[in-house]
């Protein structure tokens, strides 16, 4: 369950972005998680509930775009979506492919509340996770 470590790293990076922007509260974090990154989006969501507590991302939405593994055959040129344990060309079956997607573990966007005022007076959301949300964007 290394997803908690990944989440702490995520919180650390977005807090750094907030600091650079002079912002005190993060409203929305959008990340990309490729299936070849070795990180499970479902576990990441659960870990985020724990990791965000007491941070600038405490009230942030988290949206995750899942990215399927994609390969491009170096022999026939075909590009296809595949599975992590089948990095093969769907046309000619060759293993001589370049992975062109699925390694993502990155921050795509961070949205701040924009007030510049610490929101410490705000009561926490009911249950502490009401703002937590995940979305699955269409597979790329």
């Amino acid at each position, binding site marked *: *369950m*290394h997803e908690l*470590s*990944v989440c702490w*790293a*995520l919180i*650390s*990076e977005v807090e*750094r*972005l907030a600091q*650079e*922007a002079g*912002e005190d509260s993060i*409203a929305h974090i959008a*990340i*990309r998680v490729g299936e*070849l*990154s*070795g*990180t499970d989006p479902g576990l990441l969501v659960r870990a985020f509930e724990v990791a965000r507590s007491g941070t600038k991302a405490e009230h942030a939405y988290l949206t995750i775009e899942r990215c399927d593994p994609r390969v491009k055959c170096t022999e026939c040129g075909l590009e296809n979506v595949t599975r*992590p*344990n*089948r*990095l*093969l060309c769907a046309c000619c079956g060759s*293993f001589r492919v370049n*992975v062109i997607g699925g390694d*993502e*573990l*990155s*921050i*795509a*966007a*961070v*949205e*701040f*509340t*924009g007030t510049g005022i610490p929101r410490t007076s705000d009561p926490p959301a009911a249950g502490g996770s009401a703002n937590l949300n995940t979305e699955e964007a269409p597979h790329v």
Partner: protein
Amino acid sequence: MCSHCGCAANNKHRLHLPHRGSEDSTIASVDGLAHEEGVIRNILAANDRIASHNRQHFDESGVLAINLMSSPGSGKTSLLEATIDALGPELGFAVIEGDLETENDAARIRAKGVPALQITTGGACHLDATMVHHGLHELDLNGVDVLFIENVGNLVCPASFDLGAHCNVTLLSATEGDDKPAKYPIIFRKSDLVMLTKSDLLPYLDNFQVDRAAATLKASGYDGPLLRTSVAKSVDVGEWLAWLRQRLADHRAGLFLNRNHPG
């Protein structure tokens, strides 16, 4: 190790200024630091920075660093013992051991006369670059040719964290079955070398066919060799020692480019 590099201070990183989005919100822009379209930065950027720092330290020390990964009990420490027995007279070794608890593995290495540092992670299922960095402060690399970082036994989590090693070596033991690469493909794809350990048991095992393992490794994106080793009743580590010697020679000649860490 870092008395002159300033690593004790916060790692400096080029600041990224977000663009103002609307009156109610600002959205960090995706230009500037972006190295991939639509990406502000990698989530594990901090780990990667420390990993690069570790790698630089290895390079400056003339050390080849190898991240050794596998399931628990597949024979990582036994392989290191056999390697030290075979090459100890000609090469200097050091070992960083990662386990949740105990000094057992470090004690086995020290018994061979090789310096070993045990990192006990508590509950953590993997080593990360910071743990290795802290370990390096405790380990004298003078006279060391090869540093082995024996990761926590786990085929999942260690694959996600760059430690700063020059190459990843993953063990697959015969008793685990030949479908392990199909079940845990990520770690094998990130490997520069995969070795089949406990290969002397193959005649007694129905669930391991070498050609089937090789096929699943290829489908998982690993295109290197599957070297066989055994270290118990019959010691056979010749191919591994040859690989290690060649890797060290390439590293020293500056010819080795790790496919996971180009540049």
